[in-house]
């Protein structure tokens, strides 16, 4: 029987093959049979988690809270220097320059990326905007969010900052950033769960030493990371508390 590893569906598509390479590397290093399962959306992934199928996950901060509190997962590592940030943008021709100038009734485009949506909604609050007084336009990808803004189907969009920065220059020229979050302490984490918890220390050692191994460094590069650093239990608890405060 192999253990199941999955990645939060909000990963950058450019790094899809990187996760498969990473899984092969991890199996070799730990000697454990691990199957990588990529789910297309959050609903499918959460269903697998609910059915206790998942043993290892690169989780977004929103899901991390549920994984620790309800499913007994513990943190392993996080990528160094990578944090989750959100951007609020409008079309470049939109006369609005500040969130406070947006008016109730505006049409908001977003994805179902939970922590990014939450950060985005927080940044819209100074304009007295909330889910009740905006029209919603749910999108599968950030490229779709951008397209809706360009076409004028949506007035304002919420982006994962990394995804916005990865948009083509041509698209970015037609958009305008109203606000970019600088939160710094919200991040994805690689987490270990039931069935593998007794191997936590071994996994942590492998992963924190990955950057100093020639092959490991190449694998990290394919994920867009430079190295992993250990996340201890208290750091994870702090982030969960932080997410709790932001969810109200």
């Amino acid at each position, binding site marked *: 029987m192999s253990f199941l590893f999955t990645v939060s569906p909000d990963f950058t598509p450019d790094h899809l093959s990187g996760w498969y390479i990473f899984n092969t590397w991890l199996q070799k290093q730990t000697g454990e049979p691990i199957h990588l399962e990529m789910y297309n959306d959050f609903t499918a992934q959460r269903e697998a988690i609910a059915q206790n199928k998942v043993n290892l996950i690169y989780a977004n901060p929103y899901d991390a809270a549920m994984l620790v509190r309800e499913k007994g997962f513990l943190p392993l590592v996080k990528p160094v220097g990578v944090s989750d940030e959100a951007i609020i943008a409008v079309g470049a021709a939109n006369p609005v320059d500040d*969130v*406070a100038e947006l008016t109730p009734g505006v049409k908001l485009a977003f994805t179902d990326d939970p922590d990014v949506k939450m950060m985005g909604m*927080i*940044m819209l*609050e*100074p*304009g*007295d905007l909330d889910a009740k007084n905006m029209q919603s336009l749910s999108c599968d990808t950030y490229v779709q969010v951008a397209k809706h803004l360009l076409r004028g189907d949506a007035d304002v969009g919420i982006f994962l900052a990394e995804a916005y920065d990865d948009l083509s220059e041509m698209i970015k020229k037609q958009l305008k950033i109203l*606000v*970019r*979050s*600088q*939160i*710094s*302490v919200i991040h994805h984490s690689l987490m270990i769960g039931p069935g593998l918890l007794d191997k936590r220390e071994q996994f942590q050692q492998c992963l924190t030493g990955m950057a100093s191994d020639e092959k490991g460094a190449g694998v990290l590069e394919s994920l867009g990371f430079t190295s992993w650093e250990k996340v201890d239990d208290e750091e994870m*608890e*702090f982030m969960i*508390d*932080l997410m*709790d*405060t*932001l969810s*109200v």
Partner: protein
Amino acid sequence: MINDMKPEDIVGEFKEAALNLFGGMQRKVLYTEIETPYPDGKLIVSTTDPNGVITHVNQSFIEMSGYTEAELIGAPHSILRHPDMPSAAFKDLWDTVKRGEKWQGFVKNLRKDGGYYWVKATVIPNIRKGVVVGYTSVRRKPSRTKVEECRKLYPTLF
């Protein structure tokens, strides 16, 4: 322990007030009418022990409060208490978090230089193995509409 504010730290014309703080502490504060706008996209984060003594602050907290990290760690959180904030608001905060619930409200905070800044604050108890080990407070940018409402409401609560 909390020190009185010093005139040499204050920027601009100031008024003086004596505050009675939690735990029987008293403090002389000096305050001006200079507002520092809340920085876009940032969160101000701090953690205290169960008695409200600061154990952690982030960079945004340091920048907005005007104090150094060394001045903040170990100080009571009421170092930010502005005389325009009614004590009823803080009583409600403490009553709520002591019940193990989240508190949210709009707060006018006092800077070291006597100026002020408005925040939308959320405070939650940090529960570890069933025990409250402290509180985390996160502030975000408030809407001006809400600030104006509080500006009118708070003086009626004294």
